[in-house]
């Protein structure tokens, strides 16, 4: 197993390198970082522009810049100079990565729990009102643009706050600005109040997809021969579910969850923008806006790495959970 993981990770390296090269070239070609200085009203002094050009090595051909950047990342964990002088890319990736991780992890857990419960129940009660309601609401959430949903949620939350007179839900940032004098409990509720809306917004879309997936894989299991046999032998539904069906039915979902990480990261970009979280999502938007090639490429490299990690995780989970599968 361990050897398998190592092999997979090693095999992923060329893919990562190729992906990062592709990303670097795409970004370098799609915009000029000197642009903001020229557009500024009035434009910056020519000496300043020249200094920036040199700092970013813009006179070198793209492949050379890419290799220089890659070498810096690999050897020194230095993600390269940013268009903005005082902006440390590595620093930002780390601190903002933690913020995004908090949001994404919680949203995934929430979505997973909800999806399992509704998926299993609606498979077991197929074609009942419950099933139809859950299925329809799942479809509905899947059909909503995530920012539309986030904006509506924000509106509802503010109305709720007004109605109850208490500030339960917060709408900007991941915590209140000044928590230096909060007790631990207050800090906790503050964090929770800020987490609530973005987590729900991010979770709802994944939940919808996973719930349907869980329902269908549950149905597959329920219709399978060994379950029918168990029922024929007289076992109650409860026992059948607990002993046999559930574990098998969960397998596909766990892997799908891990594979969906790329989509969730994409969803986080939108959610963080709407709720003003200072996470990776907003960092990307800012970097793209500034035509900051090194920052965008570093971001994509990190994202790619996370995706690879989760892909391997998915395969490992699959092997662990399904006794029929073994990798040498």
């Amino acid at each position, binding site marked *: 197993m361990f050897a398998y993981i190592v092999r997979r990770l090693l095999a992923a390296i*060329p*893919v*990562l390198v*190729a*992906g990062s090269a*592709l*990303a670097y070239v*795409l*970004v370098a*070609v*799609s*915009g000029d970082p000197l642009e903001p200085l020229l557009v500024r009203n009035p434009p910056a002094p020519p000496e300043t522009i020249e200094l920036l050009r040199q700092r970013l090595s813009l006179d070198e051909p793209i492949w050379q810049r890419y290799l220089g950047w890659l070498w810096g990342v690999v050897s020194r964990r230095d993600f390269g100079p940013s268009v903005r002088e005082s902006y440390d890319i590595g620093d930002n990736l780390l601190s903002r990565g933690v913020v995004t991780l908090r949001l994404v992890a919680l949203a995934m857990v929430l979505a997973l729990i909800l999806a399992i419960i509704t998926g299993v129940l609606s498979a077991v009660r*197929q074609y009942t009102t419950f099933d139809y309601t859950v299925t329809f609401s799942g*479809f*509905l959430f*899947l*059909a*909503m*643009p*995530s*920012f*539309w949903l986030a*904006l*509506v949620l924000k*509106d509802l939350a503010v109305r709720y706050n007004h109605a109850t007179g208490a500030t339960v839900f917060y709408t900007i940032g991941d915590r209140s600005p000044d928590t230096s004098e909060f007790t631990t409990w207050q800090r906790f509720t503050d964090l929770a109040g800020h987490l609530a809306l973005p987590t729900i917004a991010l979770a709802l879309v994944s939940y919808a997809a996973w719930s349907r997936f869980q329902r*269908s894989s549950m*149905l*597959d299991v*329920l*219709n399978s021969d060994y379950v*029918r046999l168990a*029922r024929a032998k007289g076992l109650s539904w409860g026992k059948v579910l607990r002993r046999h069906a559930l574990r098998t039915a969960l397998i596909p979902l766990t892997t799908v969850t891990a594979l969906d990480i*790329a*989509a969730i*990261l*994409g969803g986080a*970009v*939108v959610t963080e*923008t709407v709720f003003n979280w200072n996470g990776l999502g907003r960092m*990307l*938007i800012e970097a*793209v806006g500034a*035509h900051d090639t090194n920052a*965008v490429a570093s*971001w*994509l490299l990190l*994202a*790619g790495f996370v*995706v*690879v990690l989760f892909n391997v995780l998915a395969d490992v989970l699959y092997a662990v959970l399904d006794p029929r599968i073994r990798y040498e």
Partner: protein
Amino acid sequence: MSDTTVLSVEPAEVEPTVRLRSQRAMVLRRFLRHRAAMGSLVLFGLVVLFAFVGPLVLPYDHTSIGDDLSRPPSLRHPFGTDQLGHDTMAQVMRGAQQSIKIALLVAVAATGAGALWGSVAGLYRGVADALMMRLVDVLLILPGIAVAAALSGSIGNGGWLAVAIILGSLTWPYVSRVVRGTVLSLREQEFVEAARALGASDSRIIVRHLLPNAIGPIVVTATILVAGAILGEAGLSFLGLGVRSPDTSLGLLVAGAKDALNTRPWLFYFPGAVIILIALTISFIGDGLRDAFDPRQQLRR
């Protein structure tokens, strides 16, 4: 003496009435029986009519600037007007046109490219397969929205075609994976062997035998892509990276109205409702198609 009015019933000339149904007919029948999918098909058709035929009926087009500014829905302007004097219904129609065009182009192009790529890879296996799938991996590693963000500045003027190209190039890898998986399981079956024994060339095998049998997953994936493209375009427009003025799209309309939730809700909810409607109906249609191609899931316990 018994009654001899025994009706002698001669067995009628009963032809076996089991009509030979082709797979296609069976699929169609199952689909037609799926109520939600049929209903959605009708609804979707209505939306398409609304988007493409509607402008011919409406007295305004999406560029006409009238004198009613920011009016709520009324008889003259069923969806209200915006700040500039545009009729919102005309704008939603035009936006729906652009969004649907994007979604369909993405689905068709991505499905076409992905199906071809995946079936070639699946058929040949070996080194070709490994290389082709490596490329797919490389493309799949990068979160779509991030790549779209990075690219958005460089392609075109923000028209619908540019957005479609970007979204299409991000989604074809998914199709290729699905198709490859299907082809891998199909190629072991006898009909492929038989075709080979009869001397069919590879391309003929792909086109005449593999692809038609993979049609189920391909079609279902295509519907998912359509829905995904609609939502993807909306998301990109919200971030300012999708369709841009003076062109319009549903995503752009909603994004432009994001502050107007409470003050001029008709600008926010109407385009949003159309997006949801399109994505919803397409999803149900896809669901119906999946059940039609693969009825296992409908068996009662």
